[in-house]
């Protein structure tokens, strides 16, 4: 327990046991988040499109992701005869590895991260750019035309948008150096701390410069993850399924897992760089203990609200014997959420004093993770929203936007930010 009281992330403290525990938690958490995202996307998309979405497996289709996962695991594993077996086999693993390795430096809280590298953001961008290798290899190894075109498209797209993305990131990093010592940082945790010290989220810094950089990043990250409206690589109507046309079963699900994990990863970069990472709103202005306590109630309230929605859904189910089990299932699910809310409430009350007791540490940790995950969840919702609203860009238009619009703007923002930074100092 000596580590638990410290303010360091396990990688920094050199505590291998806790690092392992964190890695397992994050791995499990991201996998669960991907499954939840899968359900949420289908459900939200369905409601955008005046339909119901999954309704059969479990109440409101809650068990659908599990059923899907089972189906994919049990499916026959097909490798096309003309495919390059080894590369075909390893490509999804590369993608998965790249998108999961990124999480080692994602700061869920000041000490709630596997490690804190002093090249954190560089590491994140670099490793997430390895994902493109998996896509290129999948496209090539399938030995088929559609995957090949899909792979060429997506690799060109990802490489192009990386440039604008990197420049937008640089302008945020530039803002971290506006302190007394004048030295910036690449460490994810330090970036959030810099925002705390300067008392402003970087999205609002030098308005509208931070906002522009953020918007550029937000656009580029959609393109990086091959999501609508930039989902050319897997444009269903053009290339059937793009680079994973020939994949099925478990391997295909690995690609999906990698894609969603990458979405969460880039969203957490955006949250860390521009939206104050783990910080709750107004940590400096509203720092009185009363405010602290109020904000620490949010996790409990959120889960309580979800439980309420669950109970409402159970109550609104048609009163027919056919829905008996569904109703009971939903009620149990809501009850579990309610229990969780209760637990969070107890922790929030028990740890309301800012001493170094275990309850207080727990409460802080939960707060940090809660606010971080909430901000990431907003991005996840945006990803779904984009997909429901917009048509798809054409390849040349995509490139045009990447190179002729986003790149000059991000360069300009970078330069102006530097100038303003110098003047302000």
């Amino acid at each position, binding site marked *: 327990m000596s580590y638990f009281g410290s303010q360091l992330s396990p990688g920094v403290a050199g505590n291998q046991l806790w690092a392992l525990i964190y890695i397992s938690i994050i791995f499990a958490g991201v996998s669960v988040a991907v499954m939840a995202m899968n359900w949420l996307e289908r459900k939200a998309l369905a409601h955008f499109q005046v339909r119901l979405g999954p309704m059969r497996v479990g109440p409101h289709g809650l068990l659908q992701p599990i059923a899907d996962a089972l189906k994919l695991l049990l499916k026959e594993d097909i490798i096309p005869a003309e495919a390059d077996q080894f590369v075909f086999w390893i490509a999804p693993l590369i993608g998965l590895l790249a998108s999961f390795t990124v999480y080692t430096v994602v700061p869920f809280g000041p000490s709630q991260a596997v490690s804190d590298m002093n090249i954190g953001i560089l*590491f994140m961008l670099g490793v997430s750019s390895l994902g493109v290798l998996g896509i290129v290899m999948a496209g090539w190894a399938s030995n088929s035309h559609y995957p090949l075109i899909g792979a060429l498209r997506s690799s060109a797209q990802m490489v192009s948008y990386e440039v604008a993305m990197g420049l937008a990131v640089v302008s945020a990093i530039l803002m971290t150096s506006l302190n007394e010592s004048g030295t910036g940082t690449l460490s994810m945790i330090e970036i959030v701390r810099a925002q705390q010290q300067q008392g402003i989220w970087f999205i609002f810094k030098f308005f509208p410069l931070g906002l522009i950089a953020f918007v550029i990043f937000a656009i580029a990250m959609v393109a990086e993850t091959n999501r609508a409206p930039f989902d050319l690589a897997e444009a269903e109507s053009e290339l059937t399924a793009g680079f994973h046309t020939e994949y099925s079963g478990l391997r295909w699900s690995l690609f999906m897992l990698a894609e969603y994990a990458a979405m969460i990863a880039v969203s957490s970069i955006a949250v860390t760089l521009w939206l104050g990472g783990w910080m709750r709103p107004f940590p400096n202005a509203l720092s009185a203990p009363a405010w602290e306590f109020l904000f620490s109630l949010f996790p409990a309230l959120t889960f309580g609200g979800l439980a309420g929605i669950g109970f409402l859904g159970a109550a609104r189910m048609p009163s027919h014997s056919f829905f008996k089990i569904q109703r009971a299932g939903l009620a149990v699910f809501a009850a579990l959420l309610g229990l969780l809310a209760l637990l969070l409430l107890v922790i929030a009350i028990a740890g309301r004093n800012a001493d170094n007791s275990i309850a207080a540490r727990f409460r802080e940790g939960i707060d940090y993770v809660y606010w971080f995950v909430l901000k990431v969840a907003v991005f996840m919702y945006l990803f779904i929203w984009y997909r429901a609203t917009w048509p798809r860009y054409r390849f040349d238009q995509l490139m045009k936007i990447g190179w002729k619009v986003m790149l000059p703007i991000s360069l300009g923002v970078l330069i102006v930010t530097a100038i303003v930074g110098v003047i302000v100092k």
Partner: protein
Amino acid sequence: MTPGMAPVATPFFFYLLSGLAVLGGVLVITRRNAVHSALALIVTLLAVSGLYLMLYAPFVAGVQIIVYAGGIMVLFLFVIMLVNIERTAKERQFNRIWPAGVLAAVALLGLFVSVYVKGKRLFPDSNLPLPETSNTQQIGVMLYGNYMFSFEIASLLLLVAILGAVIMAKKRI
């Protein structure tokens, strides 16, 4: 890393990473299929980047991953796909003067070995302290300070390379 803390299991990681790097290197020059070679090269590059981390050069390691593994290798794979002709994989892989080439390389290796054996005492066992926490900042200061001119020349070189590559790869010259 906190000062004074010993890096974890250094010899083990060193041998693992250098073994991977050399294995990757061997595969690069022996594979028939260029894509397999590229895969092996990626393994080598990542292993070397791990070695950089062990040498307290995190920024170089990051650059290695971004530029080499994420950029240059994608370019390689791209080109391999574009010029992918199955004929090449079925042909003779080594040119006619390969014994001479291997001989020259082995001679060079002999030279290296003899230098390292003879000059072993030139390399001190203990390393001078290297600030790791502010590595990136210091490299930045050096790039924009001492090496300003070289930096500009490097950017010019890149510009020329971009133009050259675009013109070379254009459809009709």
